[in-house]
């Protein structure tokens, strides 16, 4: 039989041997490499951060390369970055930390500080005083748990209003909306002819940048809070319902696709194509919105404070922070690396080269920075008002529960009052479970 010859040429046993040898050599090679690394001289720091264009430090994002190289030589440190795309970070951290072994020294954190509090070092107390004084209080509030400051926010990232100046001018409006009524009115006025007054990503319920976090802006604008002194939900009241009601009222002027936009980039695409007039977004948006390669509204973008509710304007914090792992063998060197990331020059290059605003007040007030990032002034102004992200260890579970109810109300299948009540009940369950 002809076919036998093809098969006989490589007999099965030979193949097995080959495969075994191949696998063994791969494994051996990997082990050898690992051993070699352990033997060498400089201190090695493993750092987990998101890949650019999400907020990332020098070495991942392209800025301050020389300064970084100099710092590494001066301190005899080798920095190894692991930089997965942002959405993968939380899963990786959960798996790494659950394994209980040293993996990373420094980890980027975005609202997960309290959640992973047991694994993080409260290194802030060892930071130099002049650095701490130069940072706004929010730098720490979202990474503080149980009285311990576990990390430091490194970019001032608050939601503000972005609007299309041309659309407003064409409708005879001179200034962006200053309060809820103006917001609803203008959005309605600007809707029509295939364009919408408002667009946002209501598609993802959880986390910072999910629909629940957007509602928290309106909640604070109505003078409300997420939790009471006892840690139990305190938003099942007029403030909570009114906040949701604004979003519901806006739906008639909102891009209907909003309910299906999972990531903020989907909403940004609509805005940048000139098909929506207003949206809430993070400061980073300024760059791509003015980039001719991706945007049709270059030069027409304006930034303003979020419209005020009964209690004034308010926003939420993006909470991008650096934290240090307890299992790190070199927590002091790690802290020094974070100090480098927060160095004045590095922070300045951060905004000038990558578009992520600095956190240091002195750098924010630098005229060069304010010239390069016009929306920095707006952010600073917004920062004078509340911007609590209400981060707790159950942040994901809580925002998922609230977010689902909000989506039902936005889709019109539930009243705002019912949605808030259901959300409050579910959050109560979650908070109670945490204690058990």
């Amino acid at each position, binding site marked *: 039989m002809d076919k036998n010859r093809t098969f006989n040429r490589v007999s099965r046993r030979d193949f097995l041997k080959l495969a075994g040898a191949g696998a063994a050599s791969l494994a051996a090679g990997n082990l050898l490499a690992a051993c070699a690394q352990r033997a060498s001289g400089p201190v090695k720091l493993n750092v987990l951060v998101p890949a650019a264009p999400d907020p990332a430090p020098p070495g991942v994002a392209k800025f301050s390369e020389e300064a970084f190289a100099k710092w590494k030589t001066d301190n005899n440190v080798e920095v190894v970055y692991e930089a997965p795309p942002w959405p993968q970070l939380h899963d990786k951290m*959960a798996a790494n930390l659950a394994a209980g072994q040293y993996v990373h020294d420094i980890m980027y954190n975005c609202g997960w500080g309290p959640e992973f509090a047991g694994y993080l070092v409260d290194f802030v107390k060892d930071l130099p005083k002049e650095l701490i004084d130069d940072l706004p209080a929010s730098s720490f509030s979202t990474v503080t748990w149980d009285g311990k400051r576990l990390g430091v926010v490194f970019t001032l990232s608050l939601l503000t209003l972005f609007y299309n100046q041309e659309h407003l001018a064409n409708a005879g409006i001179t200034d962006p909306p200053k309060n809820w009524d103006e917001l609803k009115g203008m959005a309605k006025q600007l809707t029509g002819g295939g364009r919408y007054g408002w667009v946002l990503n209501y598609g993802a319920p959880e986390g910072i940048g999910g629909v629940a976090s957007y509602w928290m802006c309106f909640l604070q604008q109505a003078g409300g809070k997420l939790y009471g002194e006892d840690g139990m939900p305190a938003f099942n009241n007029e403030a909570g319902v009114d906040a949701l009601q604004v979003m519901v009222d806006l739906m008639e002027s909102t891009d209907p696709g909003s309910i*299906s936009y999972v990531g903020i980039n989907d909403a940004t695409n609509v805005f940048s194509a000139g098909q929506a007039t207003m949206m809430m977004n993070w400061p980073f948006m300024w760059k791509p919105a003015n980039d001719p390669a991706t945007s049709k509204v270059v030069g027409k973008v304006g930034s303003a404070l979020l419209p005020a509710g009964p209690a004034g304007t308010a926003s939420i914090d993006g909470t991008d922070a650096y934290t240090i792992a307890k299992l790190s063998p070199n927590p002091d060197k790690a802290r020094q690396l974070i100090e480098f990331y927060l160095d004045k020059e590095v922070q300045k290059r951060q905004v000038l080269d990558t578009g992520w605003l600095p956190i240091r007040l002195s750098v924010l007030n630098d005229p060069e920075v304010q010239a390069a990032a016009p929306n920095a002034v707006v952010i600073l102004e917004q920062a004078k008002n509340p911007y609590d992200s209400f981060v707790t260890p159950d942040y994901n579970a809580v925002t998922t529960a609230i977010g689902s109810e909000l989506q039902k109300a936005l889709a019109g299948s539930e009243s705002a009052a019912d949605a808030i009540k259901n959300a409050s009940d579910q959050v109560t369950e979650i908070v109670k479970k945490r204690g058990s």
Partner: protein
Amino acid sequence: MQQISEYNRRRIRMGIWFSAPAVIVLLTVLAYPILASWVLSFLRVYFAGQGLSFRFYGLTNYTELLTNQLFREALLRSIYFTLVEVIVVTFLALIVALLLNHPLGRHAFFRVVLLVPWALAPVANAVLWKWIYNANYGILNQALIGLGIIDRNIIWLGSPVLALNMILLADIWKAVPFIALLLLAGLQNIPSHLYKAARLDGANAWQQFQHVTLPGLKTTLIISIVLQSIWALKVFDLIYVLTKGSPADSTVLLNYLSWRVTFSNLDVGYGAAIANVLFVLMFILSLVYIRALRPRKTKEKVG
């Protein structure tokens, strides 16, 4: 007599040697994690620092999911999803296999075409469909409006029922190639003399299909249905990329719920309980299929 039993013993020993490598791989990699998953479901797991901490929790995780409305809805949705997907995929894959088995379809070109949807990485596939379904710029809306079938954009992923079915559609598109390939291989294995005999008996094409093709494909069909059910129950990538469970948790299926609870909420015990329920579901399903359609003939022995 002695010779026969020695031959049999040798065969059994051969059998053990033959299957040992596969069993060893499976045991070493999966035994601990699967056992761990079962054990975890009876514990309350904390992320408290220094790895994981545990507390015995009895059946609380299970009673929790029995009383949880979201779990019940996810379960029903998973069942619906699986049922529809298995029926549609098997049907379509059979047609494709028959087409490719026809003299006109024997060209290698069609086999390559078959592999293309399959070759696309799931993450890319998910993003592609997200792009196709995009309310404003997706090609689906543009094409339908261009053809005059609809007059305004449909938010494919924006309404609960529609979103679930669009995910179903994307998964069906990706799943048909492998099942079709399997069925095609099965079709090739049906001896052609059976068809000749049927034709001599005066059977037309439909009767040949009924009495020669389908019985000949029985085992392959069972395998396809069982595998497809298991994969449909495990769907994850599409939900993760397309909707993240939205709108309002209407596209949350069991496997996705298990992931969300485990990785997003860090409630590992509860997530393990959900996964175990899913496992039991698949197990029972497979048993039912296999038992109900088991070929009646007994195994023959050589020699």
